[in-house]
């Protein structure tokens, strides 16, 4: 990134994609972007796309293999589970839950973290010290252990899981934003704004936040992958999403019992997780290469 | 075996390009130079003039993306066609180099002694054992104070000047026939620069090594080198005996460079910058690259590349004006 781009004041910039393209991040990961979009479509239009109701049992079609396997049928492209529920429909429903929880957690955790990070970085002093020590405490444990500790207190289910995910991810945003603010604060245009008599809150919101936005965005996209892993892990352990809600992790845990007779029950949900996480990570890495060539994230 | 009057290094038609082949950046173009054994050659030019790239090409340490053509003959061997293994055998032994930044050119995690012994061991591969005092001896030769202490110290415990002495010691431990020093004093305090430069002359006087010293510090070249090459935008624009070039520079760029030397006039230091900017190497004009900044440019200068013209004993210049004899 050139020095002039670095010193770019808030607001200037143009379209995100166009800027990324020029910034030398290389070709955008088309396949990954397509898979991410597909997930979003599946999440939004779930019911309309899915061939069946995801939790509707059909005892005439139990453990039907995928369409191309021996004994498979075109009625159930990816096969059915132990209750005769259509795997494809369940995968689509799982995408909905995964994206819903991940999206909500990233939005809420991001907002809280960014606010606290801005406060810490801009105000400094005691506020900064207190906030950053709390951040340290929240990041002291591996996120899955932290999440389990929260689950133990809060309980399971979609709402609680989102809350748990927020509690485990906000601190990362706070830490990133604080370090961004500290470095941006020293730049000329912020000093100028202060000399011009803008109030701290105005400076923070109008000048500092927009400059930190790219890094926050990259972290958010990478965080979606982490959130999908966390949600599916908790659900797999039985302390996350609870039936009748559908989750890829939950489907895996249920399918495990039938692994010897019906591989498709464990293979599809796992592949869905891997593809989704890889895609969001690839997208995030691509953005990172463009926005953050020196790898500060 | 090279005869005393036979050249040690001959570079012919050297071209170095980077970037996409359809829009190449020519870092060095049509470079020719000859160096006799024991000769000290200064190469000067602004940053981006291709002097460092030229040296890296001789050492064969350019990045893989560089496209190199031409010939580099060292003691009768064509270096560009050697295998990496053969080249590695020459490096440090027959031709050696000192890099720009002494602060970062030593491994921070090993003692000076450890790194020196590593170099000495490589020199004597297959030969005699390294003598225990070898490292201290090397440091003594480059006049480093308290060498017995230094071998036990880590790089961060030494000053920049001390580190540069260590590096010069390493590079010259095997008494190479050619030493290239790339901006060896740029990163150092002015007070130490002279002392480091003196080391190179000592090396020539005691070991008979030829030295190529690359710098934008013309005063260093004036004091040290026998001959000087001036480069601009990847091309050699003037070459000649140091004294003659400094006394009667023929290329307008050389004159501008000499004019930009701080000069004491009426007790005042006058620094005269060259007007204009160094051209973009990917978009060079068809004629002389300096024409846009040249105060005496002719029409021909903008359309046609200047040919070499000899203007004195081993003094050549690439300039239409100088060739026409019209020194402004």
């Amino acid at each position, binding site marked *: 990134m050139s020095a002039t781009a670095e010193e770019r004041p808030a607001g200037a910039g143009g379209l995100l994609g166009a800027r990324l393209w020029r910034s030398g991040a290389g070709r955008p990961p088309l396949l990954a972007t397509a898979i991410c979009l597909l997930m979003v479509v599946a999440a939004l239009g779930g019911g309309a796309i899915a061939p069946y109701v995801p939790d509707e049992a059909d005892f005439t079609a139990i453990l039907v293999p995928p369409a191309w396997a021996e004994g498979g049928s075109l009625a159930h492209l990816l096969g059915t589970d132990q209750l005769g529920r259509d795997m494809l429909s369940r995968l689509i429903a799982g995408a909905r839950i995964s994206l819903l929880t991940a999206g909500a957690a990233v939005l809420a955790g991001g907002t809280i973290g960014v606010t606290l990070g801005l406060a810490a970085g801009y105000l400094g002093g005691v506020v900064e010290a207190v906030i950053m*020590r709390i951040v340290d405490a929240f990041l*002291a444990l591996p996120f899955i252990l932290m999440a389990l500790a929260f689950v133990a207190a809060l309980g399971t289910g979609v709402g609680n899981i989102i809350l748990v995910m927020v509690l485990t991810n906000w601190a990362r945003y706070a830490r990133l934003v604080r370090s961004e603010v500290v470095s941006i604060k020293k730049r000329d245009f912020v000093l100028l704004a202060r000399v011009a008599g803008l109030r701290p809150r105005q400076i923070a919101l109008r000048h500092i936040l927009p400059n930190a936005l790219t890094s926050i965005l990259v972290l958010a996209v990478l965080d979606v992958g982490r959130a999908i892993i966390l949600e599916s892990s908790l659900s797999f352990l039985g302390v996350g999403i609870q039936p009748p809600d559908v989750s890829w992790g939950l489907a895996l845990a249920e399918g495990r019992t039938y692994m010897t007779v019906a591989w498709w029950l464990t293979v599809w949900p796992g592949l869905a997780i891997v593809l989704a996480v890889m895609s969001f990570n690839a997208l995030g890495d691509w953005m990172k290469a463009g926005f953050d060539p020196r790898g500060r994230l | 075996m090279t005869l005393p009057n036979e050249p040690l290094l001959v570079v012919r038609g050297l071209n170095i390009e980077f970037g996409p082949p359809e829009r190449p950046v020519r870092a060095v173009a049509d470079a020719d130079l000859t160096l006799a054994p024991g000769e000290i050659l200064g190469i000067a030019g602004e940053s981006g003039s291709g002097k460092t790239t030229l040296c890296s090409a001789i050492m064969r340490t350019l990045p893989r993306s560089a496209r190199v053509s031409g010939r580099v003959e060292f003691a009768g061997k064509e270096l560009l066609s050697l295998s990496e293994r053969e080249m590695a055998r020459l490096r440090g032994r027959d031709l*050696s180099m000192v890099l720009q930044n002494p602060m970062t050119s030593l491994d921070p995690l090993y003692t000076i002694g450890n790194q020196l012994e590593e170099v000495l061991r490589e020199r004597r591969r297959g030969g005699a054992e390294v003598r225990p005092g070898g490292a201290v001896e090397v440091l003594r030769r480059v006049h480093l104070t308290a060498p017995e202490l230094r071998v036990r110290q880590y790089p961060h415990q030494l000053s920049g000047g001390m580190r540069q002495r260590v590096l010069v010691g390493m590079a010259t431990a095997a008494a190479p026939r050619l030493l290239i020093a790339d901006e060896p004093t740029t990163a150092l305090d002015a007070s130490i620069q002279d002392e480091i430069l003196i080391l190179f002359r000592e090396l020539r006087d005691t070991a008979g090594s030829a030295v190529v010293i690359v710098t934008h510090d013309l005063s260093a070249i004036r004091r040290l080198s026998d001959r000087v090459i001036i480069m601009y935008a990847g091309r050699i624009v003037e070459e000649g005996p140091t004294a003659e070039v400094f006394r009667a520079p023929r290329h307008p760029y050389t004159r501008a460079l000499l004019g930009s030397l701080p000069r004491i006039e009426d007790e005042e230091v006058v620094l005269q910058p060259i007007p204009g900017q160094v051209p973009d190497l990917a978009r060079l004009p068809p004629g002389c690259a300096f024409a846009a900044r040249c105060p005496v440019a002719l029409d021909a200068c903008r359309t046609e590349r200047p040919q070499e013209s000899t203007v004195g004993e081993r003094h050549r210049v690439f300039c239409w004006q100088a060739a026409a004899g019209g020194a402004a």
Partner: protein
Amino acid sequence: MARFILTRLGQTLVTLALLTILIFVLARLTGDPTPLVLPSEATEADRAFFREQYGLDRPIHEQYVVFLRNVLHGDFGISFRYREPAFNLVLMAIGPTLQLAGVSMLVAVMLGLPLGIAAALRPGSWLAAAVRAYASFGQAVPTFWSGLMLIFLFAITLPLLPSSGYGEVENFVLPAVTLGFYASASVTMLTWANMTEALRSDFVQMERVLGIPRRLIVLKHALRNASLPIVTYLGLQFGLLLGGAVVTERVFAWPGVGQMLVDAILNRDYPVVQAAVMLTAVLVMTINLAVDLLYAVLDPRVSRS
């Protein structure tokens, strides 16, 4: 140096103190544990005695002091389920978890280090592209799935290895490969990045022009310089492995802290949850501290100034 150690120690203690507050608050969020602990036929006097013993009848900040004092004495209360001190239960489970994390770390380093070095030595090659694919795949595969797939392949389809259990060497193979593969992805990327940086450094360039053999430049100089941040990272990675072990233990029925923690959550056995979380936290932070000190020892710029 002494100052550095003291600062880090101070930071760690502050973080730990805050963590006890966090765990205390979480414990209180779950409500009064008395009915869960005492049998239903307990008298009101029994309940009062219990509340007094654990300070539940006092104001919240005093409760915290009691909690902290108990924690410092290793007293997290009695497991509701096993009727044994929770701390002892967790202590017994920590061994298998540490073993699993340790062996997995070994697997991760043995995979990640050579892959990262190889990719750094050949930038732009097909090998580098393959290593990148390996790493991005490894980072995206949840351990519960790779574990199940390994069981499917090597315990069910080809019955070569046990799918669960603890004690024998062959019990280690599948869990350690599962967890180690996951961790190897980030070890690979980190080695790659640091090795690339080290290979670009001035001293490597200098060693090249001095004719030092490439093998020596790569292994003695570049790798040692690259290994400093890698060592620090491995410390953090060990913490992540302890987290990852929770899921892996569940897949392979490994008798470790993770398995115990999940069971405790499912059974609302809060003393065990608290003990498990707190003990793991102390472990993770001790390791991070140790790694920082190790870094100082490895880097003469820190230890010799």
